[in-house]
């Protein structure tokens, strides 16, 4: 039976699906298709001159791991370290703005985000200028004989991790601020009423309640930093190359697309694993619960 009423009902039931079609189309075009093509390219065979063809060739994965395991491990190490340092630096700032910012919360946030309106590459190049051997900082200190002439910062791990931290500040401070802003002040007051000293209130109530912000910031910053290549390229040296630099080299310079794709696939897999482990350790279900 297809009387008008039931047709209308069907139309209404299907409406949400129809309305979500553009999103599905977007996902398919910009996420699923590139993902599949990346995975298939990682299994391709050939060379830059004749081109590459799909061949179930798993050899690139083996080569990627044996040739570039140093850079892979280093990327995760730099990524984790820079994420942690960023968290430690931004948390107190976000906390202060959320709890003591008063009427000027927006202004403080804006001031902190202001440098990030400048292009990412320019900002990183500015650090190169500041940190170079005879640059603004070291040059001045050396001229004043406060540092030996041989001191250098550029191309050390510290310079790369420092650059990663600097570039991550905005991405960590925003989710932290939002989470801390959402912490119910009445609950904080209740902790004080229940004999929690200010430090116990922080560790037992405020910190756990801001966990969603810590997790959101971790996702944004860790994933970006592990795959980053600009900081290592601009501030680092041969000893600080990250997997992003290797992928970039294989893709643009060597034009070894299967290797670049295999490395990208490995990176993606390891990142998903890392996020899964984080969620397991800190309880994803809880994280979602407060976020709700």
């Amino acid at each position: 039976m297809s009387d008008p009423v039931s047709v209308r009902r069907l139309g209404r039931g299907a409406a949400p699906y129809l309305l979500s079609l553009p999103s599905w189309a977007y996902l398919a075009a910009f996420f699923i298709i590139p993902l599949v093509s990346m995975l298939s390219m990682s299994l391709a065979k050939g060379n830059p001159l004749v081109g590459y063809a799909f061949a179930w060739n798993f050899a690139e994965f083996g080569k990627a791991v044996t040739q570039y395991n140093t850079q892979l491990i280093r990327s995760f190490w730099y990524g984790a370290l820079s994420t942690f340092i960023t968290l430690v630096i931004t948390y107190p700032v976000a906390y202060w703005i959320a709890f003591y910012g008063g009427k000027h919360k927006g202004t403080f946030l804006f001031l902190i985000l202001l440098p990030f309106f400048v292009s990412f590459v320019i900002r990183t190049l500015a650090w190169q200028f500041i940190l170079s051997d005879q640059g603004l900082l070291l040059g001045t200190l050396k001229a004043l004989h406060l540092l030996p002439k041989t001191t250098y910062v550029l191309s050390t791990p510290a310079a790369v991790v420092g650059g990663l931290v600097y570039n991550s500040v905005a991405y960590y401070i925003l989710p932290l601020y939002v989470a801390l802003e959402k912490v119910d002040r009445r609950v904080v007051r209740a902790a004080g009423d229940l004999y929690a000293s200010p430090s116990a209130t922080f560790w037992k109530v405020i910190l756990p309640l801001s966990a969603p912000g810590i997790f959101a910031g971790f996702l944004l910053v860790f994933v970006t930093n592990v795959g980053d290549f600009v900081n290592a390229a601009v501030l680092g040296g041969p000893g600080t190359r990250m997997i992003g630099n290797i992928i970039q080299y294989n893709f643009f310079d060597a034009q070894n697309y299967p290797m670049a794709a295999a490395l990208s696939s490995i990176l993606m897999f390891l990142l998903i694993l890392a996020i899964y482990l984080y969620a397991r350790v800190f309880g994803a279900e809880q994280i979602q619960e407060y976020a709700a």
Partner: protein
Amino acid sequence: MPARPATSQPAPQGGAAPRPGSAPAAGNSQRMDVRLENVTKSYGPVTAVDDLSLVIESGEFFSLLGSSGCGKTTTLSMVGGFQEPTSGHIYLGGTDVSRLPPYKRDVNTVFQSYALFPHLTVAENVAFGLKRKKVPKSEIESRVAEMMRLVDLKGFENRKPALLSGGQQQRVALARALVNRPKLLLLDEPLGALDLKLRKQMQIELKRIQVEVGITFLYVTHDQEEAIVMSDRLAVMSKGKIEQVGPPSEVYDRPATEFVAGFLGASNMMWGEVSGQAGDYVAVKLDGGAVLQVPAAAAEGHGTRLRLGVRPEKISVLPVSEPAREGWNTLEGTVTLSVYTGIGHQYTIRDAAGHEFAAYVQNSEAARGPDRGEAVRIAWRPEHTFVVAPEQG
């Protein structure tokens, strides 16, 4: 109430001696638990609490009753330590705590919003205060279990607060505070968020728990019925000041001020002039011309021009055909409004002078009440007449 032997009192500490003239009159035979002395709290130009003095005795269920904005929460916050008084002192068990932070006071609070920890289970919420006080683990477990029984939440230990109903959350908030066995429990409109039926149920429940644990409760509410039902004593507050303190029946039957007469229940108010005295009663000639008998004790200290009142339910509405009742205060008038309320009738009666009276009459009599427009006599016993300090301005 039998006086406790004075020797059982702890020796007063140096700073706790009441300063002459500032301590409000209190039953000195009772151990004083909470004392507010000339406490004032100002927020810039706003005086939220104005020179308030109050004594709450140990084990009492004491209510602060007043309309929104009269300073109840501010008073409670100062006792709890969330606000510092602008001036004045607060003593708990004889110790001046006016400047102590909340976590150093032997006081716990049940917040209106409950303010449960959303990331902790019910049992963890209840154990929170004990853990901060470093109570041994086994004792925490037994005390939490005891509380779960007391508030009837056994079996909910491992739930998160978000999965509880409003009434259950309310009871977790209560358990979380009571488990610490504070000297004093502060409750800020704890039933405000519950629906009427649950609220009535929780009123009885709270009272039962208070009697069982014997802890002093300082209870804030704007609901006069709640305060009357639950309190051993209550204070009616208005504009940051206390209008009257006493047991509910006393405050209800003998309101001290016109504000109290109007806030706690309804009152018929009249102006009159003392015209003579006979025994325990003074004769008062109302502005309308009629003469009433008023207990001399009630009129004492109010001068010769009196603000009188009588509660609507104390008034009998009688047919004019009946003989006037001997010795009762009697006025004649006409019924201008008759409203059926289920348990009775609510009448508005206008007397000869044009003054309107409200009267509540229960439907216990077989005869049906007067109709609108009917001439009636209203009468009440002289001792039901009270005298108040008139409203300023």
